[in-house]
């Protein structure tokens, strides 16, 4: 018996329980007055039959695979497996895939001997888990059906279940945040056991190539993250913002203050399209079209070291991507400035541009700044553009035609490709991720607070 069959059985029991509940309540309805409609009696029975059993199955299925692995390793065939952890794992996963029919033959000869053990253990634990789930379903069905009576408040019972579902759903967001923090911190702690925190935070050398063999000399790897953060700031917070802030802000001003409503109704969606284009498309555009021109331009103005993976190309394209973001945030804050302030300034004889520059913009500034902070947080977390268009060399340079690397580029670089999971290289990616998460968290919190305060000020 597999868990899928158990799942189907649980659902069938729930359906039958619901039908029985409905029939019983309808029969009662002929003779007396019910508190709840029959459909609520049905839902009550079905929920009691299905939900506890489903919850159990959801908890059991990850546990089961552990049990299966353990019992296979404890079998006589499992005990002769090589003790080297990685080899052992790969044989196990091969045998598991053959047993479940995902693949026909194994690469390791040992895996075929394990297949019957796997099938057997899988079968045994699925029978146990599935059996318990079905018992849960039956118990729930019997319990709920016995309670069905004319005065029974089935609707209240159903609503209590629904309420529990609502609370559970809204907890998932918090659990996700917690999951991000915990998983990043857990892996980062393991990283900091290998590499001291001070080296990671203050080091200026980044070359994560670890020694391939333990006795190999001269390549222990350096994990100083400062060059990466410099590259990230240089591309995302400096070059991209030099492009995006003036263009985004002026677009917002033009569209809210000058443009004819019909022009506005056309231009706004067009800018939104710019925001909806997938970043991989921007990355391809940056690498294939923009980067060669930037390099040629750099060479033409006398920068002989101009790289085809320049910071400028990635930053320019990232700036274009951010324009609609800044524009829509600025749009909102400008629209929130009370009309009376604008009218007052115009009545004093100021021109439109003077009103905007001296009255509207200063009043809207907190909102605009909040928007820019959110945009920066987005730019430094942006991955595909820099992976495709920026380089891998960790340089500390302010030359926009040179190649720099960023945090996200390095995370992708460290984690793609096959390597064992415990090496400092892969763990470093999590440490970088943690730093990135904390920085964007701080930026987001400041920005969200600023924007909210500002909105309240004029409401």
């Amino acid at each position, binding site marked *: 018996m597999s868990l899928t069959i158990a799942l189907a059985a649980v659902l069938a029991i729930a359906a039958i329980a619901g039908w029985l509940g409905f029939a019983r309540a309808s029969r009662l309805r002929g003779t007396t007055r019910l508190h709840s409609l029959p459909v609520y009696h049905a839902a009550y029975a079905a929920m009691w039959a299905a939900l506890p059993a489903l919850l159990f199955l959801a908890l059991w299925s*990850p546990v089961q*695979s552990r049990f299966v692995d353990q019992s296979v390793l404890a079998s006589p065939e499992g005990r002769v497996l090589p003790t080297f952890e990685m080899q052992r794992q790969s044989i196990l996963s091969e045998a598991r895939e053959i047993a479940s029919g995902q693949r026909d033959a194994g690469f390791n000869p040992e895996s075929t001997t394990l297949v019957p053990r796997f099938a057997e253990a899988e079968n045994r634990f699925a029978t146990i888990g599935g059996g318990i789930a079905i018992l849960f379903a039956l118990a729930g069905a019997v319990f709920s059906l016995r309670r069905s009576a004319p005065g029974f408040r089935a609707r209240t019972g159903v*609503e209590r279940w*629904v*309420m529990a579902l*609502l609370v559970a*759903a*809204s907890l*998932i*967001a*918090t659990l*996700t*945040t917690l*999951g*991000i923090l915990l*998983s*990043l911190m857990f892996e980062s702690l393991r990283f900091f056991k290998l590499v001291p925190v001070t080296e990671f935070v203050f080091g200026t050398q980044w070359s994560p190539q670890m020694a391939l063999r333990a006795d190999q000399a001269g390549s222990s790897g350096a994990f100083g993250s400062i060059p990466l953060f410099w590259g990230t700031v240089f591309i995302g917070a400096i070059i991209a913002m030099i492009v995006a802030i003036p*263009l985004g802000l*002026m*677009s917002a001003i*033009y*569209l809210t*203050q*000058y443009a004819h409503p019909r022009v506005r109704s056309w*231009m706004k969606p*067009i*800018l*939104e*399209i710019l925001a*909806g*284009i*997938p*970043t*991989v*498309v921007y*990355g*391809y555009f940056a*690498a*294939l*079209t923009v980067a060669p021109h930037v390099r040629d331009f750099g060479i033409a103005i006398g920068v002989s070291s101009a790289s085809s993976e320049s910071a400028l190309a990635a930053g320019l394209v990232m700036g274009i991507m951010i324009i609609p973001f800044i*524009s829509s945030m600025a749009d909102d804050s400008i629209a929130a400035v009370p009309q009376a302030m604008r009218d007052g300034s115009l009545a004093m004889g100021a*021109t439109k*541009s*003077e009103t905007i*520059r001296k009255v509207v913009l200063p009043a809207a500034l907190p909102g605009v700044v909040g928007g820019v902070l959110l945009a920066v947080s*987005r730019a430094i977390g*942006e*991955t595909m553009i820099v*992976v495709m268009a920026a380089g891998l060399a960790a340089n500390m340079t302010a030359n926009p035609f040179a190649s720099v690397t960023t945090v*996200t580029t390095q*995370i*992708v670089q460290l*984690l793609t490709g096959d390597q064992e999971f415990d090496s400092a290289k892969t763990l470093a990616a*999590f440490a970088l991720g943690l730093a*990135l*998460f904390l920085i*964007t*968290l701080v930026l*987001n919190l400041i920005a*969200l607070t600023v924007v909210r305060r500002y909105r309240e000020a004029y409401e």
Partner: protein
Amino acid sequence: MSSVAHPQRTGASNDARLRKRYAAERRFHFAGLFAVGLSALFLVFLLSNMAWKGLGGFTHYEAAMPIDFARSDLMLDPATLKGPDASEVVAGADVEGLLSKSAGAAFGPDAAEMFGAAAQRSVGRQLIRDPGLLGRRAKLWLPVGSKVDVAAKQGGDGAIQQLVHQLRAKNALRRTVNIDFLTESDATDPSAVGIWGALKGTFLTIMVTMLLAFPIGVLSAVYLEEFARRNRWTDAIEVSINNLAAVPSIIFGLLGLAVFLNFMDLPRSAPLVGGLTLALMTMPVIVIAGRNAITSVPPSIRDAALGVGASKMQVVFHHVLPLALPGILTGTIIGMARALGETAPLLMIGMRAFIAAPPSGLTNPATVLPVQIFLWSDEVDRGFVEKTSAAIIVLLLFMLLMNGLAIYLRNRFEQRW
């Protein structure tokens, strides 16, 4: 009476000042127009650049190739070509050798390598359709290899360009729609690649995302907006949702790697894991859109329903939610469109392997369209440039379709109270 010392402005200096102020006004106006125009120009340039590079990818060149199957050493039995294993039988035969020999004989030694995997596939199909070919000499139209294709479209160098001229002179070259690009999967030979595998992977991944993120997002929006009392817990939930919507997507990839792959042992590069990861990323977007839509339903609706004796739960699920649904759907589609274009988190969970067969289930290894674009963009072969841009066009069409649907829903169903 002494007035405040105020320099009296004469007409001339006042006019000059005014002219200056109006000039500043015009400059400012123009700067705004310039910014909007430049942004729009970027968009036009980006789209036309992709179209110009990529539209060619939907077509390919075919060459007319005389092949003498009767004297070939394919050693195929026409009877086996009718069985169910026909495609395996053909795959086992040396079609490649036959093609290179025939091409060399027909167009000179330089032509021996003019066909690639696409032509072999095409020969195989035509043999299965008409096993009688094996006994005779036939002229088949076959897709040319990537090098010749690129040379025919954009011009090439030396021998290949000669070959293209020769084929054109003999009227043996034609341009047709490349249907294989939509129906085949990834391959190492750019002439044989297709996006069907990636499209199917995208479909499965987005389906998982939708089935998880939509109900969870709507339910938590309902809870936060209609039932939650304001206290520290709900504040924490609210802050974490608002923050999650702005967390870099690659962080969700790290979460997926640590939790779904390393802790829960789910299979790598499977649509299931991709969908789970993207669902966590999309859910906050749906919650925020859902809350906005629910708040905009006027309280009078709730009061009326409560007034006729509905319970709080009935008010929400029978009245408020249906009225808020168009707004929620709009937000959901926009969130889905974002998930559809997402690449970075999927790279983290291993969806970057070379996968030559479309996935048949949620736990099979798969790739998605944006990742496929990323993988092709890394290839050195010039033939991939066109294919990458063509895949981008397909991706952009999907995005446009989804965003258009969202705008349509918003205009058609959303009520202003």
